[in-house]
């Protein structure tokens, strides 16, 4: 346990280091505008990553979150465009239903059809992308098109606090941290949380202890579906439109953040705090590298190099800690023998 805590400090330390490097080399880094902007841009990935974290903890994976988020956006845009008299509330309800149905469909494939998560969500990703094209807005040539949404509520979702001490903080950031807090609580302080860990670490044992694999997986995918709905609200608020194929690719950013934050694909490990750190780390890196004005190819290269170095450092550190605790244990035993 102590080792895990220490690791947490280290990953947090790396984040702080990165912040320092960028902060000291640029006067425009630590401005409130830039900080709020950074937080804004990572919130969407973050909200998705929360759902993904829960699923990775169960030993699964969810490659469909990006597509499902995009589908929710398209559904909202679709109904706003084709049924303008409907009012936003029922439309949001439909989008919510879409998200939950999408999550349930994932859960169905994984737990009832027993398709491994990776394949199941890869396939449902195809399905959701396909549905996006079905719901997309068509122009008079049958092609797909996009248009701006004027709805004030949708605009509000893309907005920020206009006054007070947190002037400039975007609503999506608030949603992200709130959702993260709730999810962390669920993980650590509810029976569902324990079940998620148990299913992920050792499915057979969990089932033997009476934890239902089907229900737990279902719950995880439903939560993930819910996260895509919340993310979709802010995503559509940010772009004020929806395009077919939008959101695809977000799943990899969410998964990367989750794994950088300490989740293992084998399941049973990691938590939301780690994921939040992972999300911030990726975002700070992206934003920070941008401001050096490197040529594009170098930006990409550098991002890769930093992540590789971080991974190697992390692995090194882990080994070091294991070795040290071994030596510590040895010393303690020697002391005991002397006594």
């Amino acid at each position, binding site marked *: 346990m102590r080792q895990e805590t220490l690791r947490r400090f280290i990953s947090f330390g790396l984040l702080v280091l990165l912040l320092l490097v960028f902060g000291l080399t640029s006067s425009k880094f630590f401005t409130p505008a830039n900080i709020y902007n950074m937080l804004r841009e990572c919130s969407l990935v973050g909200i998705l990553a929360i759902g993904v974290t829960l699923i990775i903890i169960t030993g699964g994976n969810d490659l469909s979150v990006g597509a499902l988020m995009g589908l929710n956006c398209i559904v909202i845009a679709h109904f706003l465009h084709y049924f303008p008299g409907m009012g936003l509330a029922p439309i949001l309800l439909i989008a919510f239903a879409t998200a939950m149905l999408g999550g349930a469909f994932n859960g169905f*494939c994984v737990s009832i059809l027993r398709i491994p998560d990776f394949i199941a969500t890869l396939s449902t990703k*195809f*399905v959701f992308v396909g549905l996006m094209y079905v719901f997309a807005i068509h122009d008079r040539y049958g092609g797909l098109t996009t248009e701006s949404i004027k709805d004030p509520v949708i605009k509000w979702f893309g907005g920020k606090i206009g006054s007070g001490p947190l002037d400039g903080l975007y609503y999506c950031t608030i949603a992200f941290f709130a959702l993260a807090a709730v999810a962390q609580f669920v993980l650590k302080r509810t029976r569902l949380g324990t079940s998620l860990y148990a299913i992920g670490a050792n499915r057979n044992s969990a089932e033997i202890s009476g934890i239902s694999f089907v229900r737990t997986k279902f719950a995880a995918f439903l939560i993930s579906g819910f996260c895509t709905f919340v993310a979709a609200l802010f995503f559509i608020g940010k772009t004020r439109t929806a395009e077919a194929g939008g959101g695809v690719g977000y799943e990899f950013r969410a998964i990367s953040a989750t794994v950088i934050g300490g989740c293992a*694909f084998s399941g049973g490990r990691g938590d939301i705090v780690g994921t939040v750190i992972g999300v911030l780390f990726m975002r700070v890196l992206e934003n920070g590298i941008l401001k050096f004005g490197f040529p594009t190819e170098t930006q*990409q*290269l550098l991002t890769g190099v930093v992540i590789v170095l971080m*991974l190697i450092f992390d692995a090194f550190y882990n080994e070091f800690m294991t070795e040290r605790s071994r030596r510590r244990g040895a010393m303690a035993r020697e002391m005991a023998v002397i006594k």
Partner: protein
Amino acid sequence: MQKKWLARLYKNRQLVILVLLCLVFAVLLPRKFLTIGNFRNILYAISLQGIMICGATFPVLLAGIDRTVSGSAALAGAVCCTTIVSHGFSTGGTLLGVLLGIGVGLLSGVFHGLVLSRFNIPAFLLTLATSEILYGLVQTVTGNQLINVMNAKLFNLVGSSRILGVPVPVYILLACFLFTYVMLNHTVYGRHLYCVGGNREAAKLSGINVRKIIIVAYIVSGVMGALSGLVLSSMNQQASASQAKGYENDVLAAIVVGGVSLRGGAGTIQGAMFGALLIGILTNGLQLLGVASVYHDLIKGLIIIAAVAVDMYSSHKMSGLKRGSALRRMFRRHRHESQLKAGA
């Protein structure tokens, strides 16, 4: 014990699924689908990803993953084409380019092998990051411009010529498949690979050099990736900064759909090829049917789910581990709960 014919059917279930799919398309598309020309098209269409699959299956069997096959391909293509251009499209330049291209894949493989066998790093993440690096290098090498090699006649032969009516890339795919098949099934390396993938500790205690196995796996993956990149450049007579981007997802999809376990130690190259063929035939059939492209993803997704579900169902059925579907059990439990209550 199940009936014998059922067992045989189960054993060849992937083939059965393919045949069924072909039958459906054959009925829907009389005289168009079941032609030599069309199967040549299908094979040609999957040849690039097929070559990548042959390599990328190795790390997956080790419970790893190599998301850089496309990056290696792009970099190999870029390096090769720039070399050819800078040597004035000469034969020597072409050979040098090809060698350098393969060398790039080799280096990438060595790097991944060394790091992943030494450190406990999730391969998914590492290769996600290194593919960024590789594509960054591709951009540097190409300067984000198209490197045209229309004039490299020798090099372009590979992508554009046919032998006995079959495009050359298909032969390359076949060669790679055979290589992988033999490696996995008939060499000591292959046996060791399955051991390491199935139980690393037991493999180590059996005297298997686990590091070597891992390094070689990533090298094969890198080199095959590079090879496919060269074929791609030859087909396109060009290298671009974004070529092959995203192919790694299709490649991994085919591998997993083909029944290779991401947990390592289980699966075959034939299975992985089945995955590629399934997706290839689907795409082909849908295009021939004239289904609008926007619906392809939807239909593909649903059919893959159906195919894998059938696969899973039959394998559970055969193992006798669980009876009936989970759905049925879910509802049944309900019944028994009331029954138990009534009993108590």
